[in-house]
């Protein structure tokens, strides 16, 4: 059983901070992309059973019903999707209408993430988003009516700084079962890189991060950036965090199968010419897999049980990472609860420190 990720590389408007592979949704490109994606799925030679499907991007919600139908039919031909499998889909507020929601449900989508980012017009403008706060509210209302399993993505660290408090309050009012909160980062390639000096101070960043932690106290802060009511965790993302196997389709998508981490060609033209062609494929060594697994697990509040490590690798966590882990416990980044290592809130906030210590 593997997870299936589908990368839909289109957006109506390109957000200036985003670092994912994408292009504007127009002309013949979407059609050619769907052809290529279908070809890639058909050609795929890996496992046949899927335990989760996730449409990410880009913006999957720009696709028309017909386009989605073609993709789903290829998917269902190639994969046996478990009946209880999570089929997740990212949508932008602009694209969300009762009709669209109904169509997505009919296709089998059972989990929706709304790209709200903020409920503040000022912050949305700063982020260069197409929608306003009003559209965001409306989209959330409609989504909540159509899907019981839904969530929203929020971005903190934008300007005006005070907008974050308003966004948190508005989010709570919609009571989504799942919330992701990402700190705005100024990656080197997107236009925002030039504005890196605007990045909020670490103290503000942490204050906003902790404000979310407090605001969503009824949710479980189950991963560095994610909150969920019990049972509403993102099953697909949990695969990544548990370093399980998944196959990625679409330009620039990553896969992890048979100990090989690979990436699809990301330039659009290259991808179309050779759907499923790889720009890199790395056979990881056992020790690389071990350390990546531990690092990923320690993004999760559920943490890593010593027993799980032994079962998976036939080795002792203590022997491999005992010293590093003790140091992290001492620094207050991890806690050891009856043989289960879990990150504390501080361990979330300084999660890279955990990785650094483990790479020792």
């Amino acid at each position: 059983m593997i997870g299936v990720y589908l990368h839909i590389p289109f957006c109506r408007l390109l957000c200036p901070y985003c670092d994912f592979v994408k292009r504007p949704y127009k002309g013949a490109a979407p059609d050619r992309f769907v052809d290529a994606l279908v070809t890639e799925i058909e050609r795929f030679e890996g496992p046949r059973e899927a335990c989760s499907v996730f449409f990410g991007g880009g913006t999957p919600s720009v696709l028309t019903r017909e386009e989605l139908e073609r993709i789903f039919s290829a998917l269902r031909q190639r994969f046996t999707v478990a009946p209880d499998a999570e089929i997740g889909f990212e949508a932008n507020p602009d694209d969300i209408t009762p009709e669209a929601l109904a169509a997505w449900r009919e296709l089998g989508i059972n989990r929706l993430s709304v790209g709200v980012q903020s409920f503040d017009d000022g912050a949305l403008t700063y982020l260069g988003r197409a929608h306003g706060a009003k559209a965001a509210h409306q989209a959330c209302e409609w989504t909540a009516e159509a899907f019981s399993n839904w969530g929203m993505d929020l971005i903190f660290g934008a300007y005006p700084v005070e907008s974050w408090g308003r966004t948190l309050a508005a989010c709570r009012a919609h009571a989504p079962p799942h919330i992701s909160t990402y700190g705005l980062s100024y990656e080197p390639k997107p236009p925002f890189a030039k504005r890196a000096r605007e990045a909020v101070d670490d103290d503000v960043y942490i204050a906003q991060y902790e404000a979310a932690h407090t605001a969503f106290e009824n949710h479980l802060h189950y991963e560095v950036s994610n909150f969920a009511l019990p049972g509403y965790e993102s099953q697909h993302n949990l695969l990544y965090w548990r370093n399980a196997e998944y196959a990625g389709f679409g330009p620039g998508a990553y896969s992890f199968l048979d100990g090989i981490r690979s990436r699809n060609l990301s330039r659009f033209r290259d991808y179309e010419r050779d759907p499923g062609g790889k720009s890199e494929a790395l056979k990881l060594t056992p020790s690389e897999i071990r350390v990546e697994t531990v690092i990923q697990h320690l993004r999760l509040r559920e943490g890593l049980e010593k027993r799980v490590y032994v079962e998976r690798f036939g080795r002792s966590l203590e022997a491999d990472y005992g010293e590093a882990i003790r140091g992290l416990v001492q620094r207050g980044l991890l806690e050891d609860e009856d043989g289960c290592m879990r990150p504390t809130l501080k361990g979330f906030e300084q999660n890279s420190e955990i990785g650094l210590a483990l790479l020792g």
Partner: protein
Amino acid sequence: MATPLDRIRNFCIIAHIDHGKSTLADRFLQLTGAVDERNFQDQSLDTMELERERGITIKSVSVRLTYTADDGTEYVLNLIDTPGHVDFSYEVSRSMAACEGALLLVDAAQGVEAQTLANAYKAIEQDLEIIPVINKIDLPSADVDMARRQIEEVVGLDGDSAILASAKEGIGTQEIIEAIIGRVPPPKGNRDAPLKALIFDAVYDTYRGVVIHTRVKQGRMRKGMTIKMMSNGLQYDVNELGVFTPAIKPAESLETGEVGYVICSIKTLKATKIGDTITDVANPAPHPLPGYQEVNPLVFCGLYPAGETDYEELRDALERLQLNDGSFQYTPDSSDALGLGFRLGFLGLLHMEIIQERLEREFDLTLVTTIPNVGYRVLKSSGEEMIIENASQMPAPNEIERIEEPYIEAEIITPTAFLGAVCDLCKDKRGIHVRIDYIDNNRCMVFYQLPLAEVVMDFYDRLKTISRGYASLEYRLLDNRPGKLVRLDILLNGEPVDALSTIVHRDRAEQIGRTLASRLQRLIPRQQYEVAIQAAVGNKIIVRETVKAMRKNVTAKCYGGDITRKRKLLERQKEGKKRMKQVGRVEVPQEAFMALLQVDGDRDK
């Protein structure tokens, strides 16, 4: 067949920086067919990567050219292209000792500048025949009459004898060569006398070992003969010798008056000394040639291995580089913060920068450089006297009777339009006005006495800025004078970082301390614990800054399953941590030491 002495001319090209020496050398190379036209590059003798990047000559280069004169006689011309920047004036002196004549280039648009004068005086001192050349006459702003007048009145040479040229367009090239043949005397010296050859340069070549550049003053050097270095008596067999055309070209012998190279199996680099005399073991000369005056470094800094580089690698690299540049000095040194390293002395800040870069590039080293300083003379209360080249050696304030700092006399040639700004700058740098000489209506020479410490910092850059590049500077050491000097220490969590100590004027201590501390505050990443940065004079803390404890270090998003890339990012971060220097419990990035180099208060305001 040896070339008769009267068919040899040895000359160098000297000038102020950028007046066109290397470009003129190109024309000579082309006229005499010494270069392959297809692969020709401008300033073809500037072969060092740094020279090409910066568009300046750093090293003197000698080339042997063959030229058939108007009367059909074939001549051997040895040309040495020299650098113009004040920091490399040692290169110019070194080259002159291998010549009988010098071409003095004057940019027709700029006129006589500081190094035009300085280099002309050096040539006069060495008794060289000087041929003035007015270059860049193709420029619309060229003022040939002005240049002629200045050569006459400022330098004191015959302005009418100056040749008009454009090195860029090849105007005057032939006329200059004919003038060299007609006016520069051929080398003197007895070819049958015992061998005396001056070592004027050397390079370490990985394949050939030490390659000595030499000028035979008397006698002859032959392949296979046994030679002796007169300074240390070490003997070697000559494996190969030859000339530069500019490529290396082996020959059977080097005769009196000729310039070329010698390769022996020299194992210890220290055995080769620039300025030494080579003689024949079978028929030794009784006395060596005068050699070179030792140069006194003016600026010092510490150089420490960093990253993958270790102490031994740095030591070997310094040894090899010194062969090629005798004008910097080094002695072992150590620092609590940086470990084992070296203290280096340079002729100026550019020199320092170049040496550091050459070490990093030519020897692939990673280095940390400390804040540069000058040498101070300290008189202790005990009566003891010491020269301090490293601020951390400075005794405690209560043990000090007096500190003296070196002063220089600066001679600045500037258009009168910038005179006010130049004087203001000198005043700001604690300068003492001496006098102003007017060259003509538009230009003058300004004389100031200045503390060397003020000049080595950022004086040159600021002079260039305020004069839009027109003012030029030459200086000579005067004496040591007492000054209100103190040692400024930087403390991290209460521990002094010896490598960051500097000696500064008391009135500047706070401002400099503030600049250093706030720069450090920006450069030291947040750590597990809060870091206090303090600047102190003696026991008195004058500035305090804090680096708050780390609160955040996280990549929020896990990029669509790109887990391996994340691990690699962490590994890189980890590598970065390893390259940090540990001061007590504080990790200081190497860039912090380097970025502190520009102690230019203005840039932070």
